[in-house]
């Protein structure tokens, strides 16, 4: 099979002039190159991770003693609100679909850039200004938002939460919401219109498939959040009574609107990381992705079902249809299980090697399994009635998000060399993995027990039950380990700065992005290989080892095929 290597499909021909663009700060402000925008997203998102992490450490320090006096009750409410808000709205989302997707999706499908480069840049500026807006709540009198990251009405109306901290929170979310919507549009258009010749939909890498489904979810869900926020703002400032009983409104409506966005949101956060892990497991097992079409079907099922489960966050309101949401929530376990079995199938009979990226991906598998199984409990209303708003729920979603953090780190170690051209130090990386993985389990397990023992969430001080302090301290130890792992990551970035050149394909990767240089040139590709399967680079490098159809076995050189 010969490659036909052609000059790249390209933008309007501008001859061979050099790229004399602006430099320095002006270059950063005016860039529309998806790789630089994606890098900006990554740096900003990691800063948000550190800020949210610092809030978490303060929370855990406060909970080290039953009547902690480290922070006041008011400050504690601000802390957990902003911890959740920063982590979800400002770190996890933008990292998943703004940072890695921006950089990787175009080069995985052979496109020169995203479909709408200027819109891409606008998304970043909206994200940055949204983050600044939300965090500046700390600098106004009255403090930052303090009504929980979910901002239930009527606690969030102007009577119960006066002050501009809450309005800044709403404003920041409006900006980041539009940022997400524009990114969703961009990703959809890029994937639908800018694939390289031969890259049919069912030859796209699984990461790109997941980003496509994520984009569709973004477009379905985020407008609902934006609408809800505008209604909340109107209630606070324009004298409407959408959510307040006194004027004939319905507080539970806020919960319906919020969670109709909120549940797809957690899948918007999770699907990109699922995609990353799929790619990494395949490459580091030296096998194709097992059950490719099953993976695609599972991703679409997760997305479709996720729009029908929102009220499982509202079981204890007493005003939602319990059986419908219960069966839909339980059903989401099925496609998720298909994915987990496919990941195992990818490793099965492979040659598994443990770079940091692969270790992190395996850590993700185990942690997500635990988090997912505990989610099954919460899908059943009778079990939810006594675990709702206790630390059991907190432990469940922290298990899941720590799994996502592990997957995100895997993505950074795997694709970092492609983006920057330099590898990260593997020894420090492995140390970071162990701190992060063990820290995550030590952090979440005590919280499961605390929740089952009846400790409620969002409490600055807690009654002195005999073993609650000990469990809280154990959880704090886990949080400290996670903090150490983050410090190790930063040290790794600093120590490995420009030290270990990566080359085009350090991991023997399968998909198209490993065919180009590290970092990719302007408009991404000097040459493109022929694309005949979902692993164009693997086919180019290992032409004797194509992916096998069902029932086929490889014929090794010394074997005589049975006649």
């Amino acid at each position, binding site marked *: 099979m010969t490659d036909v290597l052609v000059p790249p499909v390209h933008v309007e021909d501008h001859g061979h002039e050099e790229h004399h663009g602006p430099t320095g700060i002006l270059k950063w402000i005016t860039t529309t190159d998806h790789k630089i925008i994606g890098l900006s997203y990554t740096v900003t998102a990691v800063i948000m991770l550190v800020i949210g992490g610092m809030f978490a450490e303060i929370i855990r320090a406060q909970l080290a003693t039953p009547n902690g006096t480290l922070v006041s009750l008011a400050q504690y409410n601000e802390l957990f609100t902003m911890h959740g808000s920063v982590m979800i709205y400002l770190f996890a989302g933008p990292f998943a679909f703004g940072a890695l997707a921006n950089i990787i999706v175009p080069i995985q499908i052979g496109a020169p850039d995203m479909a709408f480069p200027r819109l891409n840049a606008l998304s970043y500026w909206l994200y940055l200004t949204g983050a600044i807006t939300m965090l500046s709540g700390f600098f106004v009198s009255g403090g930052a938002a303090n009504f929980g990251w979910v901002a239930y009405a009527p606690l969030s109306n102007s009577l119960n939460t006066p002050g501009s901290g809450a309005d800044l929170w709403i404003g920041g979310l409006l900006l980041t919401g539009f940022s997400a919507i524009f990114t969703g549009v961009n990703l959809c258009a890029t994937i639908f219109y800018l694939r390289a010749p031969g890259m049919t939909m069912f030859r796209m890498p699984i990461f790109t498939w997941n980003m496509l489904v994520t984009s569709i979810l973004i477009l379905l869900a985020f407008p609902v959040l934006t609408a809800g926020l505008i209604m909340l703002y109107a209630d606070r400032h324009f004298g409407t009574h959408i959510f307040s009983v006194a004027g004939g409104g319905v507080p539970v409506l806020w919960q319906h609107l919020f969670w109709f966005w909120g549940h797809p949101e957690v899948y918007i956060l999770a699907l990109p990381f699922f995609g990353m892990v799929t790619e990494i497991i395949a490459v580091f097992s030296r096998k194709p992705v097992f059950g490719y079409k099953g993976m695609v079907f599972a991703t679409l099922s997760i997305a479709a079902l996720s729009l029908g489960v929102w009220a499982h966050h509202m079981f204890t309101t*007493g005003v939602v249809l319990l059986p419908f949401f219960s069966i839909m929530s339980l059903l989401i376990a099925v496609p998720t299980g298909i994915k987990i079995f496919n990941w195992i199938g990818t490793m099965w009979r492979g040659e598994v090697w443990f770079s940091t990226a692969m270790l992190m991906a395996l850590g993700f598998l185990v942690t997500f399994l635990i988090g997912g199984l505990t989610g099954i409990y919460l899908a*059943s209303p009778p079990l939810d009635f006594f675990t709702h708003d206790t630390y059991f729920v907190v432990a469940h979603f922290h298990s899941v998000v720590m799994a996502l953090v592990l997957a995100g780190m895997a993505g950074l170690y795997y694709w970092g060399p492609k983006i920057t051209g330099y590898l990260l130090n593997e020894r420090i990386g492995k140390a970071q993995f162990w701190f992060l993985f063990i820290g995550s389990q030590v952090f979440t397990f005590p919280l499961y027990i605390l929740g089952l023992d009846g400790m409620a969430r969002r409490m600055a001080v807690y009654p002195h039950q005999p073993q609650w302090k000990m469990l809280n301290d154990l959880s704090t130890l886990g949080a400290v380990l996670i903090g150490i792992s983050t410090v190790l990551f930063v040290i790794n970035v600093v120590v490995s700065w420009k030290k270990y050149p990566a080359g085009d394909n350090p991991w023997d990767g399968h998909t198209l992005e490993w065919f180009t240089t590290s970092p990719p040139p302007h408009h991404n590709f000097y040459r493109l290989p022929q694309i005949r399967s979902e692993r164009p680079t693997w086919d180019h490098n290992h032409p004797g080892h194509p992916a096998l159809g*069902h029932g086929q076995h490889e014929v090794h050189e010394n074997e005589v095929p049975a006649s």
Partner: protein
Amino acid sequence: MWQGFSIGAVIIGALVVALILWAVFRYRRTSDRIPEQSQYHLPLEMLYTVVPILIVFGLFAATLVVENKEVANPKTSVIVNVNAFQWGWKFTYPGTNALVYGQTTEDPVMEIPVNTNVHVNLTSSDVIHGFYVKEFNFSRYALPGVLNQFTLRAQNTGTFFGQCTQLCGLYHSLMWFRVKVVSQSDYAAWIASFNNPAAEAAAKAANKTTSQQTSSIVPSKPAYTNFGVK
């Protein structure tokens, strides 16, 4: 049902973790050879699609059975109106003069008789609160403008600690209450102790203001240095 779910979860979890660990150790890289590039196996994929669906339907059936028991409305003989407000609880017993009121750590006590169906009317005067007692395996939101109703039947006597589980503002951490389950004769005596003029007047006033109030009640001084003692 909790045990049923837990057994299932542990079995499935252990199985998957075992598969992962097996795959990782047995198939770890020992050479540079390129492994057999198998990429799908339809019967196996069908198996692990269909079996989880069956498991899910089993879990759902178990859920429905328990849920129908929980939301059933048996005949009740005692009624309590629970009114949550920022930041305390008010328990009134319609038809009697009993009234219990407490803010934050004053820890109001809701007395109910053992082995009796108690009908609870739960509402809130301002923001959303949560009524949660661990030993009852149950919580329900107190929503403003909505009357949530449920039936409690306590099987053991004792005093059980309760908390507000839905963030409701500054003193959310301190909105405590207790539920005291007593024998039926003790309960009758306790109700009778409210049959004096002062209690009657207080009960009348309290029953008038049970319907929605929108003003918040701010405690004068938080007493949070002496909590934790039961």
